[in-house]
């Protein structure tokens, strides 16, 4: 069984799938919830997509697999009013997705009692360029999962699945962060300038982010225009600074922005850098307990003011 040491057993996901279906069916049939937000299989082998199930008979369409990459918290934000409008919602959530739900509760966007959280034990999901025909391994697993500490979600209404021993994965995200931090400010500036110059302003990063729920994004305004909307260096840089600042202390670290970016811009690296800054400056971390105010939304007398010269 040398193989099992290097790859993640697909049976783990199959067991979770069965349990998710049973739970979804139960809560839909009893009327406890109006809809279940989960994942279903896509047409292409080894793909999945978010789905919103209201009919108990359709609970059998739900799956959990390494293709279930999306952070479904997106569908509970005010950007998706149609979904919230259905009534009490059950949501299938991985450990890393939970942080976003908690963050939204802290921002008064969600109430815990209005949710039925079906936590799934998660061994990992596939990386963006992974060969979908292979089981998860060092070669195919997503960056965030290599350093995951929340394989088994907590504070859910029900958690399904059992974790078995996982292979050891080499961390890549923290290595990249260390590389970034070792750069001089000038090097870092040109690193980001180069990456942002490729941005086409498709806003996939914004649209998949559970925290980009503003009804009027500053970056869409045209009267007056706050940030140039055309994909050119100046506007791109401004857009990415606004994005990073607005998510600092709020970002749940799900890395959906980076996954969604068609231009492969390492957005989560920037998020992680911002998270580190916030931890150092304000001792703040996105976590699993709702906090009413993030550090950038609150003034305290003992805040660091050394930057005021």
């Amino acid at each position, binding site marked *: 069984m040398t193989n099992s040491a290097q790859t993640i057993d697909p049976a783990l996901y199959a067991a979770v799938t069965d349990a998710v279906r049973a739970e979804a069916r139960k809560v839909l049939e009893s009327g406890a919830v109006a809809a279940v937000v989960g994942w279903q299989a*896509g*047409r*292409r*082998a080894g*793909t*999945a*997509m*978010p*789905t*919103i199930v209201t009919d108990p008979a359709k609970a059998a369409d739900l799956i959990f697999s390494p293709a279930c990459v*999306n952070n479904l918290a*997106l*569908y509970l934000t005010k*950007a*998706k*009013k*149609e*979904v919230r409008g259905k009534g009490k919602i059950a949501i299938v959530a991985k450990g890393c997705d939970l942080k976003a739900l908690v963050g939204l509760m802290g921002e008064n966007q969600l109430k815990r009692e209005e949710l039925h959280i079906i936590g799934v034990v998660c061994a990992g999901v596939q990386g963006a*360029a992974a060969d979908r025909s292979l089981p998860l391994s060092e070669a195919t697993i997503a960056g965030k999962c290599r350093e995951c500490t929340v394989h088994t979600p907590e504070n859910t209404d029900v958690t399904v699945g059992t974790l078995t021993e996982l292979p050891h994965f080499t961390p890549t995200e923290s290595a990249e962060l260390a590389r970034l931090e070792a750069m001089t400010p000038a090097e870092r500036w040109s690193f980001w300038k180069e990456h942002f110059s*490729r941005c*086409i*302003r*498709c*806003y*996939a990063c*914004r*649209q*998949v982010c559970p925290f980009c729920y503003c009804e009027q994004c500053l970056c*869409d305004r*045209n009267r007056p*225009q706050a940030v*140039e*909307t*055309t*994909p*050119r260096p100046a*506007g791109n840089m401004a857009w990415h600074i606004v994005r990073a600042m607005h998510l600092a202390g709020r970002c749940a670290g799900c890395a*959906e922005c980076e*996954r*969604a970016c*068609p*231009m*492969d811009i390492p957005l989560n690296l920037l998020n992680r850098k911002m998270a580190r800054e916030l931890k150092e400056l304000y001792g703040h971390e996105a976590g699993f307990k709702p906090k009413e105010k993030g550090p950038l939304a609150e003034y305290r007398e003992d805040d660091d003011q050394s930057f005021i010269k």
Partner: protein
Amino acid sequence: MPKTITEQNLRLLIDTLVKEGTRVVGPRAAGTMTLYEPLATGEELHLGELPRRSAKEAFFPLCETILTYEKDKEGVKVSDIDPARFPETVLIGARPCDVAAAPVLDAVFSWDFKDEFFLERRRKTTIIGLACTKADDACFCTAVGLSPSDTKGSDLFLTPLKDGGYRCDVVTEKGEALLSAHAGLFADGTGEPLPLAEPTLGKLDLEKIRNWLDSHFEDPLWEEIAQRCAGCGACAFLCPACHCFDIVDEGGEQKGARRKSWDACGFGKFTGHASGHNPRDVQPQRYRNRIMHKFKYYHDKFGQRLCTGCGRCIRACPVGIDIAAVLEEINNK
């Protein structure tokens, strides 16, 4: 007389064209992906994979300035950009699913308003298409009436050969002119072609789909498919046939520019009115427009469809929306 060209001579052709002052655009390795970009040398041509973004940007750039303004003592001086200054271009190594979109776009850009920015670039571009030998599970050109060896839109057409090099077919006079100007790089012959790509999706009955769309503006299908849609522009921006654009003035009181850049019907504000009213106020209505425009409206008006089956939107969609699956579902109704 059929012609062939070796791999080496193809790269030499690029070098020669570049030296002559022609802008040559082709697939080029760009970090983690391949993109259609201007080539500095033949060495840079990178034909291994389908470029992440389509070739439409050879005619319809991501962003371009259409005029500039400047205020001085006498008043405001407005300067137009003169399309005459666009360079002669050769687009090389473009896949049939990219090239076929160019003549489709001609229709809308030369309809009630002649868009000289697009049309002048089209006039000045010679397209060397390339037969496709590798499909993935998102490709479906054969399902929408094209094929991996379709020459639609090409001026010259290359087919990779078993023993290396390419067969080169002349499709238009423009292609003939390019070939005869560089005849020394080509040889007579045909060669044995490599097997073509084989997309797996079966044929779609596009007429049936159009008829269904005609009578199902309101249908539960739209919500079922598109309530998951995140409302980004990844599909439209990567698509060879999507061509909506926004026009904005950027700059200040003293000087600035009017710019045209890609837009997407999936964006929430795409149909926003100044009054605040939005006729497409939920995502399923926006996604419906995407399908309607591609497979009904454009066909009603111009007799062509806005999809070549390149699969880019399928690969890029962050929430797994699969246009081929949508078409298949309508086809099976």
